[in-house]
């Protein structure tokens, strides 16, 4: 229980009522307590200690902000019905519960409510037991009396706890009762309690034997409750997964179950997967939007020029328009081809890896880029150039794209540098230009598809995205060292 201030007036009234009633029931026993003998004092101390220790052995079934505790100590109270006087039982209960919960650092309001609640419940149980004439544990009638008394205890206890939960959670009362009532719990504690009392009276030295079935029951019970929790968590996950597949909304995430168990680990992993899917869908939407945007320009040009072509054009007009339309169609074809390349690049399976001699690769790139760079290319190779495992065609394409980008943004007399070096466990390829650098705002997005803003708008915006795709497919990365107004170095690193 937490959040006293946030609870409704009825919830608060209920809690205060239970505490006051519990206090009154305790006060009624004070005259008897004052008349205790030394033996009763000893029994009180022993039971209070046993109850306090027993508070640590409880199973909790979480229900939203509340937890319903299944406590073995109730078996002790069943035994105590037979073995000690009512005043000893009530006092031991009060002290035992309070000490046990203080030791577990429960909130004062929870301790006070729980103490009040058990005092009330055990007072009702004592009343029922005495109605049967307080029979001894050695008579079957005593067992019947204990069963009735503990049923009354359980009823009062559950009604009080469930009433508080339903007042705080605003849940229908019957629904909460259904969730938390434990018939098994009652039967189990009753049987153990009767056995304890029987052994105590007949053969006390056999009492330790009871520890074995107790521990086994503890383990079985705990496992059973956990499986209920996991089952509920699985149902919840299945429902959310069904919602996602029906709505197609991958921004939804699974609620993490409260318990630190396998179900929670599974939900966490599924959420990571959903996050990746979400990001992939967003990338795809962006890509489609950018692609359609990019194709609109050449289509607009073709459409506009054909629409405005004179019905009886001169030979020169016709020639100009045909050339222009073919040129724009080529531009569209290049965009489509690059998009296709980009889509394939992302997939490592599309690579044809082989042993590549770095020097041969660089010589090949330089030869292919000769026209592009028009004698301005300056190549610096690593002193001990070696080999790498890569798709030579793709890597060549990536480096040529970098050189093409540099050529487009470098004054016609400035040199372009290609540098190859070995950095730790990677090969690093750098292409440096001496243009205006990349505008600050575009540094982050320069390797994304269709980033062509500002002064660097020369290609169709897919060249660097393809470089990045090729690097990623090789398990490598790309980056930019920008020097605004004096040039930029684009680099690509792949594992050696």
């Amino acid at each position: 229980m937490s959040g006293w201030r946030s609870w409704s007036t009825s919830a608060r009234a209920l809690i205060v009522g239970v505490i006051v009633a519990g206090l009154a029931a305790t006060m009624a026993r004070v005259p008897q307590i004052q008349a205790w003998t030394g033996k009763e004092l000893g029994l009180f101390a022993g039971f209070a200690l046993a109850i306090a220790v027993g508070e640590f052995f409880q199973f909790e079934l979480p229900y939203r902000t509340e937890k319903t505790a299944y406590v073995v100590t109730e078996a002790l109270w069943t035994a105590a019905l037979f073995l000690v006087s009512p005043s000893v039982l009530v006092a031991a209960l009060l002290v035992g519960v309070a000490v046990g919960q203080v030791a577990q650092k429960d909130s004062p309001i929870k301790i006070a409510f729980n103490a009040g609640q058990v005092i009330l419940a055990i007072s009702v149980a004592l009343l029922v037991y005495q109605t049967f004439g307080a029979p001894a544990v050695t008579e079957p009638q005593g067992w019947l009396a204990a069963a009735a008394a503990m049923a009354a205890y359980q009823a009062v206890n559950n009604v009080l706890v469930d009433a508080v939960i339903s007042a705080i959670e605003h849940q229908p009362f019957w629904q909460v009762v259904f969730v938390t009532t434990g018939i098994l719990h009652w039967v189990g504690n009753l049987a153990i309690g009767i056995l304890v009392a029987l052994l105590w009276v007949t053969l006390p030295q056999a009492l330790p034997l009871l520890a074995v079935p107790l521990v086994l029951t503890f383990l079985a019970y705990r496992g059973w409750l956990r499986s209920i929790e996991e089952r509920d968590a699985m149902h919840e996950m299945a429902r959310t997964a069904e919602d996602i597949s029906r709505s197609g909304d991958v921004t939804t995430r699974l609620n993490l179950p409260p318990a630190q168990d396998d179900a929670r680990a599974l939900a966490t992993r599924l959420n990571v997967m959903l996050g990746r899917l979400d990001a992939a869908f967003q990338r795809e939407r962006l890509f489609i939007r950018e692609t359609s945007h990019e194709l609109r320009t050449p289509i607009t040009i073709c459409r506009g020029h054909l629409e405005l072509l004179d019905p009886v054009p001169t030979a020169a007009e016709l020639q100009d328009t045909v050339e222009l339309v073919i040129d724009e169609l080529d531009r569209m074809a290049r965009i489509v081809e690059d998009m296709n390349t980009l889509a394939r690049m992302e997939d490592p399976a599309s690579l044809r890896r082989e042993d590549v001699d770095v020097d041969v690769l660089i010589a090949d790139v330089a030869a292919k880029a000769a026209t592009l760079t028009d004698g301005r290319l300056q190549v610096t190779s690593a002193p001990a150039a070696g080999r790498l495992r890569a798709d030579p065609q793709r890597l060549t394409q990536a480096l040529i794209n970098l050189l093409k980008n540099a050529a487009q943004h470098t004054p016609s007399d400035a040199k372009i540098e290609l540098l190859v070096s070995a950095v730790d466990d990677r090969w690093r390829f750098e292409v440096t230009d001496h243009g205006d650098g990349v505008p600050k705002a575009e540094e982050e997005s320069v390797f994304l598809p269709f980033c062509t803003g500002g002064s660097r708008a020369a290609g169709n915006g897919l060249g660097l995205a393809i470089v990045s795709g090729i690097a990623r497919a090789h398990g490598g990365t790309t980056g930019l060292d920008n020097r605004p107004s004096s040039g930029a170095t684009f680099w690509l690193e792949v594992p050696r």
Partner: protein
Amino acid sequence: MKVLVVEDEERIAAFLAKGLRQRSHTVDVVGIGAEALQVLLTAYPGHDVLVLDLGLPDIDGLEVLRRAREQGVQVPVIVVTASTGGDDRAQARALGVDDYLVKPFPMNQLLASLDRLDPGLKEAAVSS
């Protein structure tokens, strides 16, 4: 009408100007936002309508319009853009854009937009 076309793609600007001139409009063409802003601010009210592309290389078309509006330029505007982003359209509306054409569009659509801005001119163009 006197039309200022702001369009960075020369080939688009070329046919826009051709189509507008065929309908007896007077056309000025600029290719970058800074130049458009300069023309709008110094020559205002020199043009009857602004035909504005949004994806300009230097200053975004909507930013050009925002700055011009801040300086009191109340010229009617027809946006011609390849962008279909929902946000652009809403921003354009907030800046008092009269029409929003997504590329590619038939020339007649642009001409009809101009006619709606000046119904009298359509009569004149048809009768001439």
